[in-house]
């Protein structure tokens, strides 16, 4: 059973580039933690530092109670699944799974039992006699996961494991991996998981907590719903959610905020003393149906994207480009409206977020 704790972890490359800036994070025992962020946010670097594949320039990394900064990967009690699967091409699936156990000098019977157990758990007993080149992407991915499970590690590390799969398979594997984590945890096995992805859908659906990173700094660590409902800053707000939150500079006036030419009536009590803020409203909080908590706003239509069950409406409010996410059965005449025509939209201003105009920090 292991928790992972990062204390002021830093990474400085030999050329002086600082990739990770003093990261503090506690991952609980058995927890499914997701690291998410755009390319270059150092999420993979951080994972590789936990794995022992990158050196740690500063701070303390503990797995369980043990300080592991200077330990080799094999001494850390971890297993890792790589983006490109990294299966050994010259070994059959069985040997790929057994390799780590054989190195650890486990008995032949023990190796066999654990390999078959893992294969059964992942429904891939029929693949054991194949070579990696005879596997499809999804199967190779399962073998890579199997190789991790067989070792019964304290901590599982996943480095964008689904990004090479097609959309349908990815959705399927997402569910499988989440289920696998819960199965392991419920059966009392160590299941602490750190999962790196740039895909916020994966992050939201799989993570029990999500750590949002940007440029080597943690932006927010919280549950998916809290990240969505209470983003700590404008970056987190725009990163989580699709299409991304409309975040626009707005002037604070008595009785509301002014966005271009439109004055949005709002309670500005918490904005007291500010002349300018960043106003944020998620596309799903802009609709076409009249509601008691919604305010009618006139906008100019740019174009619609039909997604099947819903429609993304892109429009201009004054000079600001914004988007709305409207259920297809509520889209009405907007679907056929001309480009540039006036449309009426309902803004749920009660759901609006405010961020500091300079720092981007949430104003609560």
């Amino acid at each position, binding site marked *: 059973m292991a928790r992972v704790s990062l204390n002021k972890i830093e990474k400085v490359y030999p050329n002086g580039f600082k990739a990770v800036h003093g990261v503090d994070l506690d991952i609980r025992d058995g927890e499914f933690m997701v690291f998410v962020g755009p390319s270059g946010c150092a999420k993979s670097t951080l994972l590789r530092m936990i*794995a*022992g*594949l990158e050196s740690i320039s500063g701070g303390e990394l503990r797995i369980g109670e043990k300080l592991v900064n200077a330990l*080799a*990967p*094999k001494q850390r009690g*971890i*297993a*890792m699944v*790589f*983006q*490109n*699967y*990294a*299966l*050994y*091409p*010259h070994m059959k699936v069985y040997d790929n799974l057994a*390799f*780590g156990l054989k*190195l*650890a000098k486990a008995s032949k019977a023990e190796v066999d039992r654990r390999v078959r157990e893992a294969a059964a758990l992942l429904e891939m007993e029929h693949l054991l006699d194949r070579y990696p080149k005879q596997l499809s992407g999804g199967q190779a991915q399962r073998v890579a996961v199997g*190789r991790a499970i067989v*070792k019964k590690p304290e901590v599982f590390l996943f480095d964008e494991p689904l990004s090479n799969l097609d959309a349908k398979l990815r959705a399927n594997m997402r569910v499988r991996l989440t289920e696998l984590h819960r199965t392991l945890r419920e059966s009392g096995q160590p299941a602490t998981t750190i999962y790196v992805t740039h895909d916020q859908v994966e992050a939201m659906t799989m993570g029990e907590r999500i750590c949002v990173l940007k440029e080597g700094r943690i932006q927010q660590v919280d549950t998916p719903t809290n990240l969505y409902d209470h983003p700590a800053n404008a970056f987190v707000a725009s990163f989580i959610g699709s299409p991304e939150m409309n975040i626009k500079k707005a002037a604070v006036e008595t009785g509301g905020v002014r966005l271009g030419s439109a004055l949005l009536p709002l309670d500005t009590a918490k904005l007291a003393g500010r002349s300018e803020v960043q106003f944020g409203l998620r596309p799903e909080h802009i609709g076409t149906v009249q509601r008691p908590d919604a305010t009618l706003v006139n906008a100019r239509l740019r174009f619609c994207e039909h997604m099947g069950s819903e429609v993304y409406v892109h429009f201009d409010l004054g000079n600001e480009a914004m988007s709305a996410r409207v259920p297809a059965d509520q889209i009405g005449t907007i679907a056929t409206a001309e480009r540039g025509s006036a449309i009426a939209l309902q803004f749920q201003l009660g759901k609006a977020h405010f961020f500091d105009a300079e720092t981007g920090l949430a104003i609560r």
Partner: protein
Amino acid sequence: MSTGAIDSLGPQKTPWVRYVMLVLVALVMLYPLLWLVGASFKSNREIYTEVGFWPSSFDLKAFVRGWKTSTEYTFATYFLNSFLICIPRIIVTVISCVLVGYAFARFEFWGKKLMFSIMIGTMMLPLVVLRLPQFLMFRELHWLDSYLPLIVPSAFATDTFFVFMIVQFLRGIPRDMEEAAQIDGCNAMQVLIHVLVPLLKPAIISVVVFQFIWTMNDFMGPLIYLASVEKYPVSLALKMSLSATENVEWANVIAISVVALIPSVLVFFAAQKHFVEGAASSGIKG
């Protein structure tokens, strides 16, 4: 150039022109070899009088006489000697070059770039330059007239071309697998043995083939370091059969040259599939 112009030269319209050209060039290249094989069945007189390569009769006497040689040893001894040089040399070459190539391709250490440049630089150095100092050194070590001067230098990865080839090949292999092996519990040496060597197989086979052919063909090395006839490899023995008597029995020399070619040709064809893959990909992937 328009696509029409390319099409007019394309294979659909005049494939035979292309094949005739290829066959002609191939004939020019291969004729000496064909002639050699044909001449090995001829008598000495027929060699001088007939232009064509087809012998009037298939006479194996030249092979028998050539094999016996004019010395007290048969070619069996010389072949054995060649293998006594070749096989240990190939083994130490593969081990040393893989180790050094692995270090250059995968590890960061002080002075790596400079050392790599020096190593590449030695590839440009004519071997002749090294002969004298090496000869003096081996004389001090009392290694003259033994196979050690022909084998031991290769144990220190002095065949830099092979090191370069392996480095280039390794650079084309993604590191994921090595990292996975590290996490599975391998140390650097186990990563090399369990993961990289199997992946390096094509490159290693290329090293084996090149080193085999080059060592079998090496004339200068044995000539300089070996004094006793009983230690001569095939290359020296062939030369000896030319100069042993004033009247050279060309038929014998030619017959035994053909036999001397066989091991290299066999090794090449046995390894051809992997060899081509290794020699080609080391260039492309780098």
